[in-house]
């Protein structure tokens, strides 16, 4: 037997913990505009390096540069800015509503707004989305009523989900937004199945799904990737790498030795890595992947490189496990701020208009909240009737559930 050293177990650790100085040294960032944009029918084997790069459009001066510049009209960009600001205002209010005891739970998407709102612009309205719990912006940007979202968060009598789901677990068939699951990752292969169905029927609609980087560790990530590859499903699989799961950093999810985008290489389809805080870059990548899917060239994996600006949820206290200034140290900034500065640079926006829009969004959210609270919250007002608890388990309620309902007398 050879004389070998003793083994040791490696446990990944983040660069900084509470008390340390926040640091993102590892995130070597290629300059905006430096990554080439291949044609959408490119053979995946020729663009493996894109998985290790970072597609960026907005440069340090907030100018849109390079081949990925989607050349959006100012109107579209202003509309996007509006929905990002609407989402942030909405998050802010609902978070406070939870702190006031009006509901049990809430999850913000602060800093990650571009990662899904850009898709609302790049996809067709009837392309099907299979979201995780942090894509509320997509739903708002597709025109779903904010009031209904609040009714869901409050589990009141107007919650279309009849109070059955945790807050933020929205669903809207009309908006092609699949019912959100509390179980991580399950929607990823379901999106692939939906896309396969669309292809099977000779339809033109494609599917998209979102999971967090932490969730890529679930087996369902692999199922989605493999089925998508084998059947060349017209689907966009998004990994929102916001650096943190709950308290565990992306290294615990497998991000120390490679990028999440590079997971696609082993399945033989493109894996793109994009600045998730750059609305234009996300839009451009979404558009590229959608065009590819629509033309029967199959799936794309997109790693949306971003940062979770706030706690994981209202049940979380991030100051226990990461430096409190980490978000400030994040090298890719704030997507709202960046798009705003870009528009101002184009002379299509101003600080005054921005402040006014901020106020408009705050007012909108406040007024809508009043309306929702007039219906009810988890703590009072009009609530879904307990009898509804027994509905929708099956299409037709079988005897044993009917009997239980009778027993409860509702």
């Amino acid at each position: 037997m050879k004389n070998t050293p003793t083994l040791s177990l490696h446990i990944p650790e983040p660069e900084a913990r509470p008390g340390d100085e926040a640091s993102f040294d590892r995130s070597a960032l290629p300059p905006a505009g430096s990554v080439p944009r291949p044609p959408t029918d490119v053979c995946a084997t020729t663009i493996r390096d894109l998985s290790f790069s970072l597609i960026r459009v907005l440069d340090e001066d907030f100018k849109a540069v390079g081949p990925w510049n989607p050349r959006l009209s100012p109107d579209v960009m202003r509309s996007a800015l509006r929905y990002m600001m609407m989402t942030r205002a909405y998050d802010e209010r609902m978070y406070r509503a939870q702190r006031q005891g009006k509901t049990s739970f809430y999850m913000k998407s602060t800093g990650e707004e571009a990662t899904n709102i850009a898709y609302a612009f790049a996809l067709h309205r009837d392309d099907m989305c299979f979201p995780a719990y942090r894509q509320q912006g997509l739903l708002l940007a597709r025109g779903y009523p904010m009031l209904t979202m609040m009714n869901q968060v409050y589990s009141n009598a107007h919650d279309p989900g009849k109070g059955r789901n945790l807050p933020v677990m929205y669903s809207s068939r009309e908006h092609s937004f699949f019912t959100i699951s509390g179980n991580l990752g399950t929607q990823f292969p379901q999106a692939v199945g939906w896309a396969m169905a669309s292809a099977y029927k000779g339809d033109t609609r494609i599917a998209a799904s979102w999971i967090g980087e932490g969730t890529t560790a679930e087996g369902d990530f692999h199922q989605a990737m493999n089925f998508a590859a084998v059947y060349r499903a017209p689907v966009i699989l998004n990994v929102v790498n916001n650096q943190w799961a709950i308290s565990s950093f992306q290294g615990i999810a497998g991000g120390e030795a490679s990028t999440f985008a590079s997971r696609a290489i082993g399945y033989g389809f493109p894996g793109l890595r994009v600045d998730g805080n750059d609305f234009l870059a996300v839009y451009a990548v979404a558009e590229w992947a959608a065009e590819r899917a629509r033309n029967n060239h199959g799936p794309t994996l997109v790693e949306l490189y971003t940062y979770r600006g706030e706690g994981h949820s209202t049940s979380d206290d991030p100051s226990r496990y990461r430096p409190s200034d980490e978000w400030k140290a994040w090298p890719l900034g704030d997507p709202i701020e960046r798009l705003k500065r870009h528009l101002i640079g184009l002379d299509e926006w101003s600080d005054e208009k921005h402040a006014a829009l901020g106020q408009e969004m705050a007012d909108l959210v406040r007024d809508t909240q009043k309306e929702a609270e007039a219906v009810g919250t988890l703590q009072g007002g009009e609530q879904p009737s307990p009898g509804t608890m027994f509905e929708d388990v099956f299409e037709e309620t079988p005897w044993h559930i009917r009997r239980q309902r009778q027993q409860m007398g509702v």
Partner: protein
Amino acid sequence: MATMNMIQALNSALDVMLTRDANVLVFGEDVGYFGGVFRVTEGLQKKHGLTRCFDTPIGEAGIVAVAIGMGAYGLRPVVEIQFADYIYPAYDQIVSEAARIRYRSAGEFYVPLTIRTPYGGGIFGGQTHSQSPEALFTHVAGIKTVVPSSPYDAKGLLISAIEDNDPVIFLEPKRIYNGPFNGRHDQPVIPWSKHPASEVPEGHYKIPLGKASVVREGAQVTVLAYGTMVHVALEGVAEAGVDGEVIDLRSLVPVDIDTIVASVEKTGRCVIVHEATRTSGYGAELSALVQENCFFHLEAPIERVAGWDTPYPHAHEWAYFPGPSRVAEALRRTVEV
């Protein structure tokens, strides 16, 4: 009418549904070109085309997950899990997703999914080709669980399952694919062609989910069984020489409580038979239901004849399998009280 064994009857059900409904598609491991390891999907790819009956990667979770997505789109997928023993990788997708989506979305989305899977012992399949996991599904709200015991029922129940708008676990008792095995492993195999339930219409017909069938009327004791155990129960009744009323449940959820209660109120005695391990098996639910609904009619303890609480051991096939003698013993004990 044609004479079919259970494999042919199931194949016919799939063929009928693929023909009638362009939204039906069939997939799973080895089900496409090859036609399935038990041949249930034989010829379907050739007849209906590559995209309507196809092979999948060996990922049960993926199979069920993509079927759920297809269901949400509006298709009616019928998937095969090669052996029920291999359904566990898909368990999360089944219980957390397929079973929940109608409820979660308050009916906006639902999953008209049928999961077919061969189950049960009697074929020297050892620990991983013999399991009976029905109780792991009957406990989960939002799933129906169905088990046929004859070619006629198999086709009619499978068509009902496919047309049902909720997820159905369709357990196929593989030991009786080719004949109504009654547990007498030392006797020659009886083919289905000798059994009246092998007369199967070639077209479309349904047997409703949730309705049991009284396969033998009797006055002395009620026997509740499903799948292969229906035939074993009949043989057990014969061996014991008692006047047993044998009920084939066919659906476990929803279960046909009326038929059960009517019978036990008449006989005052009940024996439950299943292959699955005893502890927390579906027999426990049946025992509880009978006791709750018929307490004042019961003249003897309800007995359970079931698989032992061990994994299913290869060489001990017949020591493990709850055969007619064990049923007969229980029947005798029960009627003698």
